[in-house]
């Protein structure tokens, strides 16, 4: 079965869910949730049989690629969506209260259908290799998220986040299309493969084409505009400003979805777009400088601003910015991989794979705590160790993994990022700056993650009652924590998925 059927099935599933929503009763959207989750899980079966589309279909092959990164990132998108739908299940009380009212599920059906559309967009992004298809897939995701962020229309925070996301998102779309326009204008194509060939040809023979090598400025101008809009997607400086506000305001499952799914999709697109520019001698040094600068600033801003935070969701937002910085560092240290070293693609994939488990786990914990305390503040975690030792332990492990403590899955991503950076620093001294900032960031990271651990264990509990964990959340948290620990000792399975 050609792989693009997967996206089609997902879209069809989404449409089915919308249809069901139209005919469902307003008391319970149980069926929609079950079908949505079940459908996506069922999709793993055709996924297993999917093959790359035939190469003779030239027009399609121009848009669509089905290689190892594509498979991995599709899987990532699928897994994230499934977990987010599970999370939405336990989040439904809060969602209902701020949508139509606490007693009815009226008007919340779309909340379980829309992530499926976003999932289709992310899966498409993993495969897109034409600026046009990238644009369309990306917009599918973005517009879906506008709705998901602003979904709780009775809560001002959600709406405010929605508007901020909308305006800044649209701004970044503007940059994206304007950048695409310039690149198209210079290279006469929107296909990344062709651009890659063009740049490669130029780098070996500067006189061949009409002077990209002689005057790469227009091309780089276009690239910088695209980079800005990608920085928006992955939450890198300077386009990171929306993240804390939107993460804080949006419904928690949406936040989790944004911070994992949307970011991962953004990174695969970033990798695909930057690939030709890193591979060419004409543009490599500028690309490295700008990506490195973004990486360094992102690490610095993300980690340092996280230090004074008091809201856990906001803390996770900054942490997500910080993680983006580390991933960018792995990209800035562009490496095509060899016998002993992962390529930048693989390092980023590895990072995001572990990041998914840890972050979703943390958001599950947040949902449980929020359900019990009605607050996202770090102080809501006070005395968690006494009130539910299992939850506290899992939260501690997940936070340690986020900080990048060894023997948790979270360590490897940073390990590879720094390894690549140091490897490349041999040839490009400028990378030491990124490494130095990276280490400052990791050290600061220990501080703010442990601040939550401190709340969990050091502080006295305001109430004595135990915190109950809903069934789904319990299974999810335990299995994600276990996965974090097991992969910490034995990370090989992720490598199988990446296909190194």
């Amino acid at each position, binding site marked *: 079965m050609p792989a693009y059927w997967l996206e089609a099935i997902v879209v069809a599933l989404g449409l089915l869910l919308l249809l069901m929503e139209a005919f469902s009763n307003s008391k319970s959207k149980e069926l929609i949730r079950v079908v949505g989750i079940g459908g996506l899980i069922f999709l793993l079966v055709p996924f297993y049989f999917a093959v790359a589309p035939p190469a003779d279909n030239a027009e399609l092959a121009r848009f669509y690629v089905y290689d190892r990164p594509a498979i991995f990132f599709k899987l990532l998108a699928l897994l994230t969506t499934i977990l987010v739908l599970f999370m939405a299940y336990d989040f439904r009380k809060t969602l209902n209260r701020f949508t139509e009212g606490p007693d009815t599920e009226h008007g919340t059906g779309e909340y379980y259908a829309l992530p499926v559309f976003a999932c289709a967009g992310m899966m498409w992004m993993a495969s897109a290799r034409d600026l046009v298809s990238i644009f369309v897939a990306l917009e599918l995701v973005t517009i879906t998220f506008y709705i998901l962020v602003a979904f709780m229309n009775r809560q001002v925070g959600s709406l405010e986040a929605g508007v901020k996301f909308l305006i800044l998102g649209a701004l970044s779309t503007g940059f994206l299309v304007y950048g695409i326009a310039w690149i198209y204008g210079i290279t006469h194509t929107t296909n990344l493969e062709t651009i890659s060939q063009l740049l490669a040809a130029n780098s070996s023979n500067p006189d061949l084409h009409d002077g990209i090598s002689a005057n790469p400025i227009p091309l780089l101008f276009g690239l910088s505009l695209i980079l800005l809009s990608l920085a928006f997607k992955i939450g890198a400086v300077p386009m990171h400003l929306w993240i804390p506000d939107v993460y804080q305001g949006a419904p928690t499952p949406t936040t989790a979805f944004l911070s994992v799914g949307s970011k991962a999709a953004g990174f695969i697109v970033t990798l695909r777009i930057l690939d030709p520019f890193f591979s060419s001698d004409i543009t490599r040094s500028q690309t490295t400088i700008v990506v490195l600068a973004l990486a360094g600033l992102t690490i610095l801003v993300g980690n340092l601003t996280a230090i004074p935070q008091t809201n856990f969701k906001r803390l996770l937002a900054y942490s997500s910015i910080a993680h983006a910085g580390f991933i960018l560092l792995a990209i800035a240290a562009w490496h095509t991989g060899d*016998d*002993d*070293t*992962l390529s930048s693609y693989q390092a980023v994939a590895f990072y995001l794979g572990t990041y998914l488990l840890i972050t979703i786990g943390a958001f599950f914990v947040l949902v449980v705590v929020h359900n019990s305390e009605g607050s996202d503040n770090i102080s809501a975690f006070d005395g968690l160790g006494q009130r539910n*030792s299992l939850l506290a*332990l899992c939260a*501690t492990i997940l936070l*340690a993994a986020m900080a990048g*403590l*060894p*023997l948790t899955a979270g*360590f*490897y991503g940073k*390990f590879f990022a*720094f*390894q690549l950076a*140091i*490897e490349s*620093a*041999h040839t490009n001294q400028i990378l030491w700056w990124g*490494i130095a900032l990276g*280490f400052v960031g*990791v*050290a600061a990271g*220990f*501080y703010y993650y*442990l601040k939550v*651990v*401190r709340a969990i*264990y*050091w502080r006295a509990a305001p109430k004595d009652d135990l915190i109950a964990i809903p069934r789904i959340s319990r299974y999810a948290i335990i299995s994600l924590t276990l996965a974090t620990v097991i992969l910490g*000792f*034995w*990370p*090989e399975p992720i*490598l199988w998925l990446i296909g*190194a």
Partner: protein
Amino acid sequence: MTLALILLPLFAVIAILMGANPRAAARNATGMMLFAGLGLAALWALGTRTFLGVDFLVLSKPEIHLALNFFDGMSVIMMLLSVIVAYAAARTGDCEDRHAKLWNISLLLIAAGAVGAFLSTDLFFFYAFHELALIPTFLTIGILGRGDRKEIAWKVTIYLAFGSIILLAGLLWLIAASGTPDLSFESLLKCTVPVAAQRGIALFLLIGFGTLVSLFPFHSWAAPAYASAPAPISMLHAGVLKKFGLYGLLRLHPLVPIGMASWLELIIVLLLGNILWVGFVTINQKRLDSMLGNSSVMHMGYIFLAIAALIAAQSESANPIAKPAAILLMFGHGVTIAMLFGLADRIERLTGTLELRDLGGLAKQAPKLAFLFGLAAMASIGLPGLANFAGEVMVFIAGFKGWEPDTPPGWVQIATILSLWGLVISAVYMLRAFRHIFQGPTVEFTRNASDLSARDRSPAVLLAAVLLIVGLFPNILLQFLEQPEAVVAREQAHITQHPRPPQPAGSAPVQPHPSPSQ
């Protein structure tokens, strides 16, 4: 089989999480660890090499193995130190029931981390296991610590994290520069690192490991941490975990000999900072716990002195004394400081205070405690017959190994001479403490103190026995470091240089003694 040493504490942790009695689980697990550790060391000493280790490939690119084995005798000795101190730590101190879980889990995790780090023959897990202690340390100090516990917990954690990160940078650079095919020590040590990169790598390793070892001026975390942490945590941290950095330097310095040598002067200045600067800080301490904490920082300087001698000599064959000296001293110091912290905890429990000026005459009320503490204190100031002395004297000899009488003393010799003054300093504060706590007339706090019960005594007695055995027969440990070639070389050197042993006039036949030369 070495896997058992890691799994025992980890299983105990799981058992505690499942609801087992925390104290019993920790004690049983550490007891079994001690048993297994001694057994494994004995097997190793008897020449068994093949079935001791385990080796799992956990990542194929870059190639990382979860490989636990005795890489050489140094690993065996450090493993022994870990299990011995862990055994004693699990039997020292106590807490309220509601903290028993945290207390014992932390203890077990730190012990598992230490054993894991010393047994890993793979650079990755060597580094990773060490970090296992970070969060337990943070939590135990923050919740159960003495004094300004919250601030101290933060400081320790950030410091250790900082050190680990610098270290990670150094290790990654080392990996990149050496071009090793996998991360095992074996393949790593076969590589040569380009000279251009050595200087930077050496500096990173020095600062990274140095911070973990509380090398001056990265030392200010250690003393407050040990003073504040619950006794078993201090014991494990000061006694075992801190040796990780030294172990790492001893393990990795052959890879960057030129780089290390280029920082020799810096190392010497810093180690003198440990011995003299921190020594003076220690003299000025008013509480037993912070005095012990600072003294443990100070004594790291001696081990760095051995490392400096090794670095100056550029190779182990040029100065065969330095490395065994450092290892012996690490072992001795680990046991001693653990014993001191354990007994300090007892003193606090008996009298309710550790302020030196509030104490006095405790030897009258608690002669057994006084005997054990005195023994440990004497060990720590280098009394012969106890483990530390053998290490210290070898360190000093190592310091003079490279000296040519025709030339003025070099950096290492000057450092050795100044370090020797540290022996006076440590005698000053140790004896002062002993005098204040145990001697003189009894005072308010000590009037009603009772002596140690047999159960309270057992960990210290074990440690004391170890100190005595190693102190009287250091070769018990040093034999682990014997290279078979070295034995042959020594015998040959002896035959060629001294065909006949010198005989005092008119004496009976003299047994040949191998010459301690060259």
